[in-house]
């Protein structure tokens, strides 16, 4: 295959890179290199310095020390313009696409088209008028070469997440990227889409490009790459050839201690129905149908997992139960009471806890202290406030300190602003708060997204513990591995409907993947 043209890229070396942010040493003398034809994984927990290192390479940040050599020549980039010109491309985790612009327009953004000839008129023309026709033509050729199908004239907001990613890759190819940085590219894809992506990435490597694959999903890294470099706390722990790597070795490199991947869990002891939904419908933020007739039950003592690709109604599902979104039809029943469209405060007081998906927005108040965030939902109770009016600071501090101990939350003090804590520690505090009231039903939405492995392990153990204590748990997660690991029963959501239910013991991953992509929908209907 290939493009029939020789690529310039031979190798990249980053030597002794240091980057200091206020209060944090994000990169501490990191060495990193990529060869042509190689897929090199950069592995590490959140805050390990992967993204910072790559942003330095791409020219978004400036490093304090060290050197970057591209084909043995220094790459002294002050902005992405310089690095793009040298053939470096980046696929960002949060897509860098403008929603109202079409695919072609997004590719044209920041593009310096070569003038047709050297005359003044054509130079002026190429700088002052967009030649979208020419861009479209080249784009279609590229998308055929690499089997990256997408309609060049669709505005981005109409495309699925997988299609948007294809646009990102096409754009990098269009700009002649020979060294490609992929920042967690699989986070939003279905298993099938991941397989397709890997085919494309392998083809790009075979053509002689260099690929840097940033991820924290160990099996993907082992599956795809040739070499793996692990970062921890801003330092390079080491590099190993992928053929010598196992999950256990990699996880230990990342965390600094052995990590358990399978929990020994007893079979669920199912009790009575705690939470049920009947034909619930709701509207999404975009005004489109969010849930279209959802029915389900969660029993005491079980974890029901909701699997699905991002944006298929997970958010709406959790919010309708928590009373944060209006159900336009159907009913929600919890603990034998009708809670359809009840006030959130009433729902909470019934014994339903909600761990929100966007913890930085819905779970905490960033500029409040750890203690203030801990008592947010109970701040008017007699325990924390005398007559509901005057805060009992000592009791608040004691309770918060106890939670910090019990949940092993790393924070300097209870009065520290919560935004300075790591994602994992913030999530543990949210969990501590939500479980402190001894709820009967727990709605956990993406409970470990953006959380480091150590904290993930802890949060998983807590959820399993709650299950064994007879709580009803609804686990909504876009991380299929997490659902498979914890759930006793798996519901697959697609376009606001449950398209399949699978028992823990009957799981076939390919089947679930198909359902997540919507192809099993007809069988269900």
């Amino acid at each position, binding site marked *: 295959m290939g493009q029939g043209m020789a690529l310039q890229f031979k190798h990249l070396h980053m030597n002794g890179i240091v980057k200091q942010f206020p209060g944090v040493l994000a990169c501490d003398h990191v060495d990193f290199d990529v060869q042509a034809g190689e897929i090199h994984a950069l592995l590490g927990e959140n805050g390990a310095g992967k993204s910072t290192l790559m942003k330095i390479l791409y020219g978004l*940040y400036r490093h304090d020390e060290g050197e970057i050599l591209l084909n043995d020549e220094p790459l002294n980039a002050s*902005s*992405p313009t310089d690095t793009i010109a040298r053939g470096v491309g980046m696929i960002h985790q949060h897509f*860098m696409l*403008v*929603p109202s612009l079409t695919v072609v327009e997004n590719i044209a*953004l920041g*593009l310096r088209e070569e003038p047709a000839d050297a005359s003044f008129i054509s130079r002026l023309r190429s700088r*002052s008028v967009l030649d979208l026709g020419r861009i479209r033509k080249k784009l279609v050729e590229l998308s055929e070469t690499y089997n990256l199908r997408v309609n060049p004239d669709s505005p981005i907001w109409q495309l699925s997440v997988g299609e948007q990613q294809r646009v990102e890759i096409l754009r990098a190819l269009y700009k002649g990227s020979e060294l490609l940085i992929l920042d967690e590219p699989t986070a939003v894809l279905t298993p099938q889409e991941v397989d397709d992506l890997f085919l494309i990435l392998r083809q790009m490597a075979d053509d002689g490009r260099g690929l840097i694959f940033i991820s924290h999903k160990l099996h993907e890294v082992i599956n795809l790459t040739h070499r793996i470099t692990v970062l921890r706390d801003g330092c390079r722990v080491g590099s190993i050839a992928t053929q010598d790597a196992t999950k256990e070795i990699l996880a230990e490199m990342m965390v600094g201690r052995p990590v358990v991947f399978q929990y020994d869990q007893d079979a669920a002891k199912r009790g009575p129905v705690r939470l049920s939904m009947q034909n619930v419908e709701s509207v999404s933020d975009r005004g489109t149908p969010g849930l279209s007739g959802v029915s389900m039950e969660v029993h005491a003592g079980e974890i029901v997992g909701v699997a699905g690709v991002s944006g298929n109604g997970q958010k709406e599902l959790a919010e309708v139960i928590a009373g944060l979104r209006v159900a336009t039809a159907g009913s929600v029943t919890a603990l034998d009471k009708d809670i359809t469209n009840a006030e959130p405060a009433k729902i909470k007081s019934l014994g339903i806890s909600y761990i929100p998906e966007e913890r930085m927005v819905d779970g905490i108040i960033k500029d409040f202290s750890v203690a203030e965030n801990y008592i947010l939902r109970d701040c008017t109770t007699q325990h924390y406030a005398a007559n509901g009016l005057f805060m009992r600071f000592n009791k608040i501090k004691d309770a918060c300190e106890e939670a910090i101990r019990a949940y092993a939350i790393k924070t300097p003090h209870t009065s520290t602003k919560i935004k300075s804590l790591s994602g994992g520690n913030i999530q543990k505090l949210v969990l501590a708060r939500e479980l402190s009231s001894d709820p009967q039903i727990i709605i956990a939405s993406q409970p470990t997204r953006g959380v480091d492995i150590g904290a993930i392990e802890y949060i998983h153990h807590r959820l399993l513990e709650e299950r064994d204590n007879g709580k009803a748990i609804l686990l909504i997660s876009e991380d299929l591995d997490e659902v498979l690991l914890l759930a006793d029963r798996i519901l697959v959501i697609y376009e606001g409907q449950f398209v399949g239910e699978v028992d823990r013991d009957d799981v076939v991953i390919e089947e679930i993947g198909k359902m997540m992509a919507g192809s099993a929908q007809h069988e269900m209907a």
Partner: protein
Amino acid sequence: MLDEIFTASVFAATIRLATPYLFAALGEMYAQRSGLLNLGVDGIMLVGSFAGFYQVYQGGSLLEGVIAAMFVGALMGLAMAFISVTLKAEQGISGIGLYLFGLGMSELLFQSLLGTPRTVSGFPDIYIPGLSDIQFLGIGQIFFQHNLLVYVAFALVPISAFILNKTPFGLNIRAVGQMPAAADAMGVSVSRVRYITSTIGGAMAGLAGASLSIALIGAYQQNLTSGMGFIAVALVYFGAWRPYGVMAGALLFSFVNALQLQINVIGFDIPTEFTVMAPPIITILALVITSKSKEKPTELTKPFERGT
């Protein structure tokens, strides 16, 4: 009675009165599409209208008057960019500050240099040969008997649409207003684009002021604009950030203005307060309708910082 109100001269006045709205709102549209809300348009218009007027009053040519107005406008637009892009100050408040500065500065200059309202002979009407004689439906009188700035203002509508939709610069503006991080990652300087649009917006607001003082009215008095700049800001919303939408809004407002004048002329007794109230009411209705526009610069008023 209706034929007394809806005369050709009312429609001609509609076209004429739309000029300052068009200049100011088209300029503000550039700024808003790139994510900058400049509430100080009225202040810039005031200073611009004074600068243009004073240049002509001192014996300068009309062209020099226009240049003077656009120059001070551009300076104030640049100041707005410095405050909101470089210093990352809150745009709503700094825009109001800019307005108050313009109001006070124009007042001060007026008191110290003119003292009392004065007149100059402004841009003369240009009758387009052939077209201005068309009698059918009064087309000649309505469209082709205006001063130069009127033609320029309307010509800027398709030109702006072309710039926004067909040029790399326009693409950069739209990208910066909706997703500056994406533009930045593609090597487009967010700050530079916002500086340019703010300066363009300022220059056009200055021109809008001049179109009042040395074309439409040919006179200067205190607070000449009486809030037209604020209407212009609203018109950008009204037009859903599109040049032709902005033009439709400008025409609607100037039509209401022209009607109000005509109704007074024929001595019909409608309290003028009603016509003064009409614009804000129409604006609010339009805002409700356009709030879901896909063209909306979602990053409006938000300073851009890398790496969040």
